[in-house]
């Protein structure tokens, strides 16, 4: 029941992910961050098998950093997306990763962009995208209210509409969501939307 979605606005891209780590009927934790900061101006929101998700996104993150060390300049978002797709495609017929990815980034020359990469390595540049059961609600909500070049306020408003829809209509809806944004000033956490807070760990 993992929900990941994102959209592109005027000079920024926003991605949202739920924060539940679930194993069968048990919720291990409800503050698991599934959106990794790939580099200064890229975000990778991933959903899928937990082991594959962490392993694969860390692998991509380290390789993107390696490229920057070797070549002195960072990869563009398109290049990072194509590299990610290449790794998924190569592994597909040997040892496939069950990870769906939304890669959001900002490039000085081309502006914000969002790439949809599913677990069988289908790559497509999109304005709005979503994965999981939540996509049945968030994609339709975004289809209704999205227009190109939305402001941050309008986009976060739309994100909140999607979260409300998921919370009210998805049977085992995740309680908490994290929202991250990337624009010319970089990739950063924007907000959390919590309805359940993990109990504080008792001090020893």
């Amino acid at each position, binding site marked *: 029941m993992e929900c990941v979605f994102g959209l592109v606005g005027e000079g920024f891209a926003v991605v949202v992910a739920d924060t539940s780590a679930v194993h069968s009927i048990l919720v291990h934790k409800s503050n698991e961050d599934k959106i990794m900061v790939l580099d200064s101006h890229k975000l990778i929101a991933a959903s899928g098998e937990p082991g594959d998700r962490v392993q694969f996104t860390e692998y991509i993150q380290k390789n993107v950093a390696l490229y920057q060390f070797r070549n002195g300049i960072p990869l563009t978002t398109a290049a990072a997306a194509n590299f990610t*797709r290449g790794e998924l*495609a190569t592994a*597909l*017929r040997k040892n496939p990763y069950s990870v769906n990815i939304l890669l959001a980034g900002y490039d000085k020359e081309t502006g914000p962009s969002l790439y*949809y990469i599913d677990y069988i390595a*289908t790559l497509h540049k999109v304005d709005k995208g979503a994965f999981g059961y939540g996509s049945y609600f968030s994609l339709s909500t975004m289809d209704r209210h999205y227009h190109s070049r939305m402001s941050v306020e309008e986009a976060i408003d739309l994100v909140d509409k999607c979260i409300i829809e998921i919370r009210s209509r998805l049977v085992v809806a995740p309680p908490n969501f994290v929202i991250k944004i990337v624009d010319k000033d970089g990739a950063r956490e924007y907000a959390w939307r919590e309805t359940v807070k993990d109990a504080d760990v008792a001090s020893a």
Partner: protein
Amino acid sequence: MSIFEYNGSALVAMVGKNCFAIASDRRLGVQLQTIATDFQRIYKIHDRLFLGLSGLATDAQTLYQRLVFRHKLYQLREERDMKPETFASLVSAVLYEKRFGPYFCQPVIAGLGEEDKPFICTMDSIGAKELAKDFVVAGTASESLYGACEAMFKPDMEAEELFETISQALLSSVDRDCLSGWGGHVYVITPTEVKERILKGRMD
């Protein structure tokens, strides 16, 4: 559901008088859900050779990258573009290499050969070539496309009439197939120019 029907696609190529046309739909889906309505299935190999790839989108993207790579090497070695017949044989060989673990794609190859004679062919996922003098079809809407093309096709059509015919054949066929549609992408190639047009059909 068959793996060939996972993403949904429709492709058709037609021969005219010293010209040819190749058209595709624009839907990218994941089974019943539509992800994008601007997906590209037809790629330019060189000015007089176009390749359409239907079937599983990830394999279409991988196959396209491999074939472009092979063609670029050919161009470097031979200092000329590949003839359509040669390219078709290359695609067939590349597909048969994976005979026991195939790419789930059906390519449609269309080009202008010697003396501006149009060449079209299609093949199955393991490289069995099917040459035709009039039209070739591929994708989830292929059965409808066969019927529509057989009814509407005339030999030796000029470029404008060919465009009308292939567009009507494509749109009427994808309207009967839930997995393909959301518009059309039509290329009409004559010895002097390449005309690319987007069709607006039923957006559902």
